[in-house]
């Protein structure tokens, strides 16, 4: 049965994390983490380097051992989760096309025989969602950083996920590529109702795209609506002495101009 949990933000949670602890190589990376990922929203997970953001993501994906509880409060138990890694570390000389890559995820028929017609169509649809249908025949290793991130987003969409986790998706992308990517994220969230959790330490991006924010530094320091949470004090608590550099680097003016109302879309903001 689906349990509805109302959070401090007033919405319904898709994932509820309770007392989560993760130890890696004898070091406690996360301790006493309590947080909620809001259903149908874009939530940003922010924090300095080494705060445990990716670790929390991996725990939620079930890829690392953890103590505590992660409840998925979606329609049928553990939902289908799409995952877009920070970057795809692979041998760029492998002769694998984008279509090979996308079909491999979903079809049992080995791609050395053929691409299944159904999967080919679905892959093209996913590529169209991320405005990358033109790269379907290109070799994966020949794509730019931005194109590759969009292909990874298309891969995540193939599973028809209820939730997508994005791990610093724009870290290896230029400014223009980041703009496109963020617009696509906003559109996917809005038009497909997919819950999105985005790991980032880019405050300017967070303020533009996320309605919810979780500040993490080994434990949750604050969480809630972006407009209420992101201020000088919370950022100082979260990022410490790095805060000045962070704000300077990302041209944050100290004011929150974020996606705070349902009407304000990232798409709209970027085209302003």
């Amino acid at each position, binding site marked *: 049965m689906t349990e509805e949990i109302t959070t401090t933000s007033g919405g319904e949670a898709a994932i509820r994390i309770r007392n989560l602890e993760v130890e890696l190589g004898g070091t406690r990376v996360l301790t006493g983490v309590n947080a909620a990922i809001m259903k149908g929203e874009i939530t940003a997970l922010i924090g300095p380097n080494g705060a445990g953001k990716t670790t929390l993501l991996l725990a939620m994906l079930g890829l690392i051992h953890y103590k505590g509880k992660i409840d998925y409060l979606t329609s049928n138990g553990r939902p289908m989760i799409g995952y877009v*890694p920070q970057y795809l570390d692979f041998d760029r000389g492998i*002769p694998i096309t984008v279509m090979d890559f996308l079909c491999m995820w979903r079809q049992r028929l080995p*791609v050395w*025989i053929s691409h299944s017609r159904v999967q080919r169509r679905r892959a093209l649809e996913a590529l169209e969602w991320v405005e990358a249908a033109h790269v379907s025949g290109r*070799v994966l290793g020949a794509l730019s950083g931005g194109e590759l991130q969009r292909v*990874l987003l298309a891969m995540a969409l193939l599973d028809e996920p209820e939730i997508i986790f994005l791990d610093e998706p724009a870290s290896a992308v230029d400014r223009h590529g980041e703009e496109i990517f963020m617009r696509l994220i906003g559109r996917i969230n809005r038009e497909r109702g997919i819950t999105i959790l985005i790991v980032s330490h880019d405050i300017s991006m967070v303020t533009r795209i996320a309605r919810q924010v979780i500040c993490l530094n080994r434990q949750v320091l604050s969480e809630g609506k972006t407009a209420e949470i992101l201020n000088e004090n919370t950022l100082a608590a979260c990022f410490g002495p790095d805060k000045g550099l962070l704000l300077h680097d990302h041209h944050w003016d100290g004011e929150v101009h974020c996606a705070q109302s349902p009407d304000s879309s990232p798409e709209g903001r970027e085209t302003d």
Partner: protein
Amino acid sequence: MEHVYSVMDLLLPFAWAEPFFMKRALLAVLLVAPVCAAMGVMVVNFRMAFFSDAISHSAFTGVALGILLGVDPRFTLIIFGALVGLGIMAIRGRSSLSVDTIIGVFLSFSVALGIVVVSAKKGLTRDLHAYLFGDVFAVSPSELGLMLILAVVCAAFLVVFFNDLFLIGVNERVAKAHGVNVKALQYFYALLLALVVTFTIRVIGLLLVTAMLVVPAATGRNLARSVRTMFWSAILVGSLSGIAGLVTSFYVKGAVGGGTIILIACLLFMISQLYATVRN
């Protein structure tokens, strides 16, 4: 086997195909070369050449141990090769050392053990000769049967698990997140690769077995622009090299089967490299 030989006589009305040893050699090459090429696609893309090298060199110890213990060396060869392969995989998952270092340790251990065993018993070097260089013309019908079984198992594996295995090679974490059982598949592949290597030693010799895996697949990679073309190009190059090497060694006095096969494969690789350089 008589029926198979009759069919071969009909299909191959050439002088080189007449002797029975050539028929058996051709069948062995046609079973082993495509399997090596197909498995080699993973070896090349996922930089596992050193892994297959370690297994092939462990065969030296496997054979020596078999002779020393009075057990059929073909049996100990396979068991020892598989153990080395699984051992590397097990330590790799539990160590912070690089894979190359772990393989290097296993390679050193197995070769050192082989040297100790060989030096412990006089006359062993003579028996090892056939395994060092292989002898494609001495393959027996029972060995052909085992090669056929291995080829069928590998083909089934590559039909069922190719996509998942390839995705693991592209990015392990993403494959895990997608629900692929990464560890189980890696072990299964390592075991199968160990078996392929040990069976191929009979044909090509342990000194050249890695070449049989790597060279056709590397040629395929140079020629290809997609996974499918790489896969089939590798199989074509492997099979062509095998047949051409056999025929050449039949007509050219002193040309050893295994060595000739690899030389022709290397020639094809060089042509493909030239093509890739011009294309890029």
